Structure formats: C-alpha cells, structure tokens
C-alpha cells in the first residue's frame, strides 16, 4: 500500500481539479485553498522521495489490457528515477509558488476562481504524467493533457477575442506537432517492440540508421510543438493572453520545457547511439534557428510579457540545441536554472502588470524602480541570471552549453554567443525602460509592491535564481543523473560570453540611456517593423497557410463534395433513373385495352415457351 503513495502525485491534483470544478463554483476561497493544498501536498511528497524518506516502486496500472504477441498492454506506471524526481521538484516547487502568487494576481476576478484553480490543478496532473511516465504512451497522454490545460488557461478570459483565438491557436499548433509525435511513438513501437523507457535501449545496433533517424525526428516533432521550436513557435507569444502566473508556470518554466525533458529522456533510454548524426544535426539546427529568430524578435517587442515570451523561446532553442549536441546534462541544467529565473521574471512582470492596472506596454511604465523596490530587485536578479552574469545561475548552465557546442561543433558555439549578446541587449532594454526614468503613463505613477502572497514567491524564486547554479545546490537538484556542476573555468567560452555580455549591455545603455526616452529610437525603420511583425511568419501562416491553403482547400473540397459526389454521382444517378422511368412509362399508358393486349401477348409467349422451348414439360 505504502509503495503506491506516488500515485498521489497524479490523483491528488486530478481529484482536486474535479472537486474544484464541480462543487466549488460558488466558493472561490475553497477552490483556491484546495488547489494550493494539493500543490503543497505533491511538493511535500516530492521532497520526501528526494530525501529518501519514502521509497518503493509503485504498482503498474493496466490501462488497456491488450497484451498480445509482440505488444505489451498499455499500462500506466511511474518511473521514479532521479531524472524524473528532480524534474518533479522543479514542477511542484514552481507550481506551488505560482499557486500562491495567483491568489494575489487573480484577486479582482474571484468569480472564475474555481475554473482557474481547477485548470492549474489539472495542469499539475498532466505535467506530472509527462514527468513520471514510464512509457511513451503515457507520455503522450500527459502531452495531450498539458495541451488541454494550456488551452483552458490561455483562454481563461475567453470573452476576449484575442485570448480565445490564442488558446485555439496554441492547441492546434500543438496538435500539428503531435501528429509527428504520434507517428514517432508508433514507429518506436514497431522498431523497438516496446514503448517502455526502461526496455527501449536494447538492440539499437541492429536497426538501420535511416529508420532510427526517422523515428527520432518524428518524436522530435512533438518537442517542436510543445517546446515551441521553429517552425511551430508561433503559438507561444500569443499564449501570453493568459493570466501571467499561468505564463510563468506553463509557458516558461515547465510545460514548454517538457519537449526538452522528453528528448533527454529518450536520449537516456534509447542510448545516444539512437540519435544518428542527421537527426542530431536537424535537432541542433532547429534549436539554433529558434534561438536566433526569437532573440531577434524580442529586441523590438513593447509588451513586457512578449519580450519574456520570446526570450523563453530563445532559451528553449538553446536547450534543444544542447540536446542535438548530445549534451543532455547541459540541456537539463539549463532547463532547471531557466525554470527558476524565468518563472521569477514572469511573476515579477505579473506583479508589475497588476500594479499598473493591467498595463503591459513597457513604454507606458517607467520609474518603477523607486516605487516597487522588492519587485524590482527580484526582477533584476532574474535578469542577471538570464543574461548570465557570472555568479548567477544562468551563467553556469549557459557556459555548459557553450562548452559542449565548442567541443562538438563550433558553429553552434558562435550562434550561442550571438544569441547571448542579443539576450543581454533586450533584457537590458526592458529593465531600463521599465524601471528607470519616470512614469510615462498614469497607471505607473501610483504603482507599489504587491502584498505578501505576491512578494513571498518572488523572493523565494529570486534566491533560487541566484544560488541554483552553484555546485552545492545543483549537484543535488539538477534533473540529470550523475550531474556535477562546474566551477568558474577560464577559457574561450568564458571570454566569449563575457564579451557578449559587455557588448549587449553597452549597446543597450548607449541606445536607451537612462530610460528618459518615451519612444524607441530604433523603431520606424524596415528592420524594426519586420521584427515587430515577427518576421512576418505569423502573417504567412495566417494568410498563406490557413487563409489560402486550408480555407480555400476546404471550400474547394466542400464544393467538390457537394457538386461531384452528391450532385453528379448521387443526384445524377437519381436523374438518370428518373429519365429511364419516364421512357418506360409509355407502356403504362393507362389504357385498359393496351394492358389486356400485353397480358394476352404475354400469355401466348409463355405458352409458346412452355410448349416449344421446353417440350419436356
């Protein structure tokens, strides 16, 4: 019995979500309290398992008893290895803080509390499903469910057209990725004969390279969708329509990192041999393209959340690039530090937005540094970690990725360095405009720090953002088996990243000064415009693929269906039959005499037949 305790990781949030939704519609506080308790419970459970207080392997639950030759039953089992459990710590830890922060953030919207918290709980459930899954089928279940909870939470304010559209876009874009992912899962089953992570690694040598490449790349499609990699990155910036705590939890720290987690999980269980050269090149390439494009787009965004969203995209690109360079430990390390500091940045942004009366445009803020000191300090901690100032967590993880890149393929190293410079630049721009100078709009004039429920999570996250890169924390908590953090190492990567840092900061200060400007000096030209328009990729999808290919295609097919299949074939056949009927109807002229004549002739004919053709009768 006691060994089945880990099932609580799944059951607790699921039950809470159901209870919140069905019974606590009218009681906002109860719903919130229950969800927070469940997050606290799973966090506690996670700590208990990490510290070894609880141990044991939970039973496997047979979900579809379909065991046949060559195919085990589809089962739900929990894989509690260090990779999973430490990832659980990130998920439940940040989840708990976001739950608490939400109390303050959603204060003005209590009527929908039960829906919101039920959504958060169902997200915790589905994310746990992905992390603890012991086979790919279960991962896929979690994969779809996080997509659903993300749909639910992005569309929390579904009366707003933009929020409803963004939710739909996120779900459908993810489905496109899942299309490939599902093919990958089925191929894995066909090729390896199992879906279970623990049995996958055997017999890789016997499989042709082309098959392995196809399998891994199909599985990677799932990561492209979920981790918002180019060319399916378009949903993530739009997902910022959701409440900010949701963005922090789902669209920065955990769900979008699930793609990275899944790829690392596959690398560990299939063995690095399964990741063929072509597959690695494609994966790293996609990561690098995403990192560069997203960083460029971030440079000219005015919405505080969108800057952070593009920064998330770009950092995810980093991680995927590390996966492609077969540096799983670097990817997971960066995932882990990024989760803390990006959640911190988003929650900080959330605190600012709520205090500026839901204003998200950075050009309408300004001078917040004096009025919101706690938030500012925390936000700056997160920024320092993101731009990799030595001593902050992001520095260590980024360094590890750059090391790996330099070792495996220097091209990606230089790409990474360029992205680092861009990152520094846009984050410095964001901080200067938001916190320095004076308020540019009425909302920002009277902003002040949030209450306890908002400041406490920020402070805790800020602590993590600073210390989580150091060996004494990272060695225990980084979600990778046998990980050891490096200290400072002087070398080419260090110098290059310092150079990138300095260049980025200098440029930002030169261009934006001390935040006195009220307008972006870089704006107005073609490059700025196209960066703001997200390099026209969204427009191309909207107008080109959805507008022309899909809509016109669907209409054409619909027309063909009704014109050719229904019109020509079905109604044509009916028309033809009718015509034949008309032709034959002259026989039935209504004249009794004609009828009797025909009957007479018929009788004579029959007699003739009987008498002469079958004389034997």
């Amino acid at each position, binding site marked *: 019995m006691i060994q089945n305790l880990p099932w609580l990781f799944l059951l607790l949030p699921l039950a809470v979500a159901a209870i919140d939704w069905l019974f606590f519609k009218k009681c906002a506080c109860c719903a919130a309290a229950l969800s927070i308790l469940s997050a606290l419970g799973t966090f506690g459970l996670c700590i208990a398992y990490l510290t070894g207080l609880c141990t044991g392997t939970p039973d496997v639950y047979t979900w579809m008893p379909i065991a046949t030759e060559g195919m085990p039953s589809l089962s739900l089992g929990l894989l509690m290895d260090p990779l999973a459990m430490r990832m659980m710590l990130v998920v439940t830890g940040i989840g708990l803080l976001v739950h608490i922060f939400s109390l303050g953030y959603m204060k003005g919207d209590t009527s929908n509390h039960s829906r919101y918290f039920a959504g958060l709980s169902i997200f915790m459930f589905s994310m746990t499903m992905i992390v603890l899954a012991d086979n790919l089928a279960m991962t896929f279940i979690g994969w779809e469910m996080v997509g659903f909870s993300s749909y639910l939470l992005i569309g929390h304010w579904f009366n707003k057209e933009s929020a409803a559209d963004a939710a739909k876009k996120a779900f459908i874009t993810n489905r496109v990725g899942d299309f490939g992912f599902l093919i990958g899962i089925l191929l894995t089953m066909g090729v390896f004969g199992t879906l279970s992570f623990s049995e996958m690694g055997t017999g890789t040598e016997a499989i042709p390279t082309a098959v392995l490449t196809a399998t891994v790349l199909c599985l990677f499609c799932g990561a492209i969708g979920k981790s918002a990699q180019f060319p399916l990155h378009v949903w993530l910036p739009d997902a910022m329509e959701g409440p900010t705590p949701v963005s922090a939890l789902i669209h920065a720290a955990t769900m979008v990192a699930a793609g990275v987690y899944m790829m690392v999980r596959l690398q560990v269980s299939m063995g690095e041999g399964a990741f063929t050269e072509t597959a690695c090149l494609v994966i790293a390439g996609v990561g690098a393209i995403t990192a560069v494009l997203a960083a460029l787009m971030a440079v000219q965004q005015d919405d505080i959340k969108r800057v952070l969203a593009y920064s998330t995209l770009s950092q995810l690109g980093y991680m995927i690039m590390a996966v492609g360079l077969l540096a799983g430990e670097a990817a997971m390390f960066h995932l882990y530090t990024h989760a803390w500091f990006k959640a911190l940045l988003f929650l900080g942004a959330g605190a600012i937005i709520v205090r500026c009366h839901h204003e998200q445009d950075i050009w309408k803020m300004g001078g917040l540094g004096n009025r919101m000191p706690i938030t500012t300090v925390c936000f700056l901690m997160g920024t320092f970690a993101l731009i990799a100032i030595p001593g902050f967590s992001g520095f260590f993880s980024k360094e590890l990725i750059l090391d790996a890149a330099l070792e495996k393929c220097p091209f990606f190293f230089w790409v990474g360095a360029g992205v680092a410079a861009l990152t520094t630049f846009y984050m410095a721009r964001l901080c200067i405009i938001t916190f320095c100078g004076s308020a540019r709009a009425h909302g920002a004039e009277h902003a002040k720090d949030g209450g306890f429920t908002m400041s406490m999570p920020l402070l805790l996250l800020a602590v993590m953002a600073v210390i989580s890169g150091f060996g004494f924390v990272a060695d225990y908590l980084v979600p990778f088996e046998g990980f050891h953090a490096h200290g400072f190492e002087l070398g080419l990567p260090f110098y290059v990243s310092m150079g990138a840092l300095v260049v980025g900061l200098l440029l930002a200060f030169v261009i934006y000064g001390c935040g006195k400007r009220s307008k972006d000096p870089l704006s107005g030209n073609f490059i700025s415009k196209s960066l703001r328009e997200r390099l026209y990729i969204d427009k191309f999808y909207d107008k080109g693929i959805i507008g022309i290919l899909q809509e016109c295609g669907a209409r054409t097919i619909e027309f063909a269906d009704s014109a050719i299949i229904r019109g020509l074939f079905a109604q044509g056949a009916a028309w033809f039959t009718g015509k034949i009927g008309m032709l034959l*109807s002259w026989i*039935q*002229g*209504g*004249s*009794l*005499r004609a009828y*009797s*004549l025909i009957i*007479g002739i018929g009788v004579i004919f029959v007699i003739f037949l009987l008498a002469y053709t079958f004389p034997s009768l």
Partner: protein
Amino acid sequence: MTPLAHYLILSGILFSIGLAGVLIRKNIIVVFMCLEMMLSAANISLVAFSRAQGTEGVPVYDAQVLALFVVAIAAAEVAIGLALIVAMFRARKSVESTAITSLKD
C-alpha cells in the same frame, strides 16, 4: 354423339369474341360482359373435356367441379366488378376505360 372438336370450336369462337371485345370496346360494362363470355368459353371446353376423357359413360368429375368453381368465382367477381363500376360512375360520371388514366401521371 357430338365430337369433341365441335365443342372446342364453339368454345374457341366464344373466347375469341370475348377477347376481341375486351381489347376493342371502351365501355367497361361491355368489357366486363366479354370477360364473362371468355369464362363461359373456358367452362364449355372444361365440360367437353370432362365428357371426352370419361370412361364408360362416367365423366371425369374434376373438370366439372372446376367448371362449377369458375361459375361461383365469376359470380363473386361480377358482384365486385359491378360495384366498382358503379362506384367509378359515381366518381367520374363515365364508364369509359379511357376515363381512368389518372394513375399514369
């Protein structure tokens, strides 16, 4: 004894007259009477066969029973047929067969 052929010729003539009447006449009552005539023709040949097939002066009664059966059915048919004709006359004010072609359309 009259030979069988004479009966059959009579029967054939009656049948042909009846058939011609059915095919040619428009008036349904006449058509109806012609039908009856054809039945009578059949009856005549039945009875004739009954005699001719008989042995030692005993006719084959099957044929005579059949003839009686035909008469009985014909009577019933006449009753229904005339009733239909009367009903038709009420509805259409006519007993011409050309007047009842509305099913054609």
